[in-house]
């Protein structure tokens, strides 16, 4: 066993797939940053709100005023450096830190695909992605034609986890039996050309989409692993992601996934892609001096392998942490994030906060739009950790205004996947007496229905 493992980790392969992946990743990230900036989202999401929702334990990560723009500049530049393979190791570490910092500034904007970028860039910090076809190679006048095979496979493994776990999460009664939430989302796409006014309105189509989505996620990484099915599977990937891009506002994610899954192809395919870049370089009259070819010696493999082993163990276990909580996951969202639960819920909520003077009994309701952006209010209304954090903020605010003996109660209603709205938070609980922790939140009222499945 040990011998097998050792020999596996000593296997070598051509670095072209990793080089193409590095270039693709860097360019996509650069494009994402530019897109984000050009839409004015830095200002809208990070500078305009007077209050930001933090991750538990990361309350110190906040937008840094106008320096937030600088943060995005650093992030974008490091992405470019990654693409070029210039000072790769520093560039990818800088990218990982700056990107993750940006994502931690406000959990209102949490998206699974941002999380994917964060952990992928973490993994890439350990990979020799600049071994081949990089400016680093030109500078050191040395290029490697063999790198450890596991480095490329680790990316395949991460992609596989994302797909398979997203598929597993779809195995639940709302998704498969009721075709929810697609049954809500698809009919509202009535303005789509050709499809909008017919199939989008059909129940069989919602069902077919739910089931094929689940089967697609569960199987696509395996079909990509086998050479015979790979071409067909990649065509499916392109179709699926482009189709979801048309249907839903999911930004760059579909393109990132299409580019990322190229890594499953073998080196010959990537050499052809790199030849495209080489031709481009020739046209631009960029000529590299002769580069010595050498065999890559992975340094510190003994330390890095256990680190990555731990990383993947966490990746495999984290999505199942919801099992430790007693209530319905979709309702309480305890253990929902960082688990590849993508597009599973249509959740809407309404939460009004009541500030009570415990001694005089006087109370008043809070106008949420005085403190939160509409986007923040929307996210806050359906997620208990947001509700608690916001209540604590309101206490600070009103205490500073001179209010005394403050207690805060909420009138909160949530509707999940087409069910009628139900009271969400116990209206008799003073939120200020509750503290954020990983323990189950017993002030969330129980879910009155049953969602079966994983």
């Amino acid at each position, binding site marked *: 066993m040990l011998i097998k493992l050792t020999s596996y980790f000593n296997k070598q392969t051509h670095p072209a797939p990793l080089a193409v992946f590095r270039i693709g990743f860097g360019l996509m990230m650069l494009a994402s940053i530019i897109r984000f900036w050009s839409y004015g989202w830095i200002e809208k999401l990070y500078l305009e709100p007077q209050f930001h929702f933090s991750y538990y334990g990361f309350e110190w990560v906040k937008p840094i005023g106008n320096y937030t723009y600088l943060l995005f500049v650093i992030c974008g530049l490091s992405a470019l450096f990654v693409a070029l393979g210039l000072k790769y190791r520093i560039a990818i570490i800088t990218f990982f830190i700056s990107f993750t910092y940006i994502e931690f500034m406000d959990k209102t904007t949490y998206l699974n695909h941002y999380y994917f970028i964060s952990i992928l860039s973490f993994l890439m910090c350990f990979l020799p992605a600049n071994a081949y076809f990089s400016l680093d190679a030109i500078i050191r006048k040395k290029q490697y034609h063999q790198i450890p095979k596991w480095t490329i496979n680790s990316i395949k493994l991460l992609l596989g986890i994302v797909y398979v776990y997203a598929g597993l999460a779809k195995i639940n009664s709302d998704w498969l039996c009721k075709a929810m939430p697609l049954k809500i989302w698809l009919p509202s796409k009535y303005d789509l050309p050709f499809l909008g006014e017919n199939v989008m309105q059909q129940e069989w189509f919602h069902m077919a989409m739910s089931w094929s989505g689940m089967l697609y996620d569960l199987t696509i990484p395996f079909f990509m692993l086998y050479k015979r099915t790979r071409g067909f599977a990649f065509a499916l990937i392109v179709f699926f992601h482009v189709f979801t891009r048309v249907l839903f506002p999911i930004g760059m994610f579909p393109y990132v996934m299409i580019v990322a899954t190229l890594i499953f192809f073998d080196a010959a395919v990537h050499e052809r892609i790199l030849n495209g870049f080489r031709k481009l370089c020739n046209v631009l009259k960029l000529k590299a001096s002769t580069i010595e070819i050498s065999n890559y010696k992975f340094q510190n493999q003994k330390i890095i392998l256990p680190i990555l082993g731990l990383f993947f163990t966490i990746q495999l276990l984290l999505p199942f942490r919801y099992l430790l909580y007693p209530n319905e996951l979709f309702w309480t969202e305890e253990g929902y994030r960082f688990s590849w639960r993508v597009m599973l819920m249509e959740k809407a909520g309404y939460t009004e906060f009541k500030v009570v003077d415990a001694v005089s009994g006087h109370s008043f309701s809070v106008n949420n739009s005085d403190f939160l952006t509409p*986007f923040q209010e929307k996210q806050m209304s359906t997620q208990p950790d947001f509700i608690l954090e916001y209540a604590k903020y309101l206490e600070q605010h009103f205490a500073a205004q001179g209010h005394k003996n403050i207690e805060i109660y909420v009138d909160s209603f949530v*509707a999940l996947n087409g069910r009628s709205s139900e009271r969400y938070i116990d209206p008799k609980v003073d939120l200020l007496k509750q503290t954020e922790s990983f323990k189950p939140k017993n002030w969330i009222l129980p879910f009155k229905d049953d969602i079966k499945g994983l």
Partner: protein
Amino acid sequence: MLKKAFLIFTITVLAMACSTSDESSGGVTDNFDRTAMLTNWADNIIVPVYEDLNIAVTNMVTEKDNFVNAPTQANLDSFRTAWYNAYKIWQSAEMFNIGRAEEINFGYQMNIYPTNITDIQNNIQSQNYDLANVNNNDAVGFPALDYMLYGLADNDMDILSFYTSNADAAKYLAYVSDLVNQMESLTQDVTQSWATYGQTFIDNANNTATGSINKLINDFMFYYEKGLRANKIGIPAGNFSTTPLPDKVEAYYRNDISKMLATEALTAMKDFFNGKHYNSTTTGESLSSYLDYLNTIKNGEDLSVLINNQFDTAQSKINTLDDSFADQIAMDNTKMTEAYDALQMAVVLLKVDMLQALNVSVDYVDADGD
């Protein structure tokens, strides 16, 4: 091997997941006609409301002119009646903050209350004002007229004296005249805009943030939550402050019509929800029928009935209130807060259940999802 495992897996999942399936599927072939809904909104509700408002405001100009020419008690009474009639119709118009009305902030120029007496008096004294200026939003429109017609003094004789014997009588007459003329020109502007805007409105049926359906639903929600629930009842009843604020009721100086105005507004909202033609019993495609259509896909609870029932509950609570909300707050504020709570329950149904069913974004959040 892989194929077999996959097959077994699929069957297991099927059996496990759908053993308690509650589908009563009936194929949905009909498509809801959104253009018909927009047409109904424009042709049978919005435009008739504006036209009616325009007539009422024009009539108010006539009565105002009579009053300015001869500030007598009789002319004051006629002027007040014209104001009352226009204010009543306004309750059906305020929610449509779209097109020209949105561009010129029609609502803000017509009905911001409580009105600001200091601003009004400064304008009267300086005689140098731009009524359309944002800073004058609380010194114009129906609430400013409320003050000019009822609030200058305790009795009619003293009020009239401001327009007759007072040293600044000419300034008072000029201001009240300018107020009404401004309201007329705004109303005409908005009413006439629909001759061309109406088609644009109907054609823009896309499900985007700027589509007519999304925009009007957002207007409807916003007006229900802020204009009706908070401004008319919640704020004066003290739901947003430590103590009640009875001087923040609508038509505070006239005093005895705040219940009538709130009832008109709630009725208008209910009628819009049900697609009922303005001043008629005929109904057309509406949010209610849209929800019914979506329900045939979803097999959920009959949301349109729930919403209508809650509107009725809220109305019956309002019916128990005094004609003057200010008096009601002084006598027994709990009845006010009960009415507020009933209105609030409809906010939940509209904002949570209806918006989820319609899958309309509440605002202009255009960040990515996943």
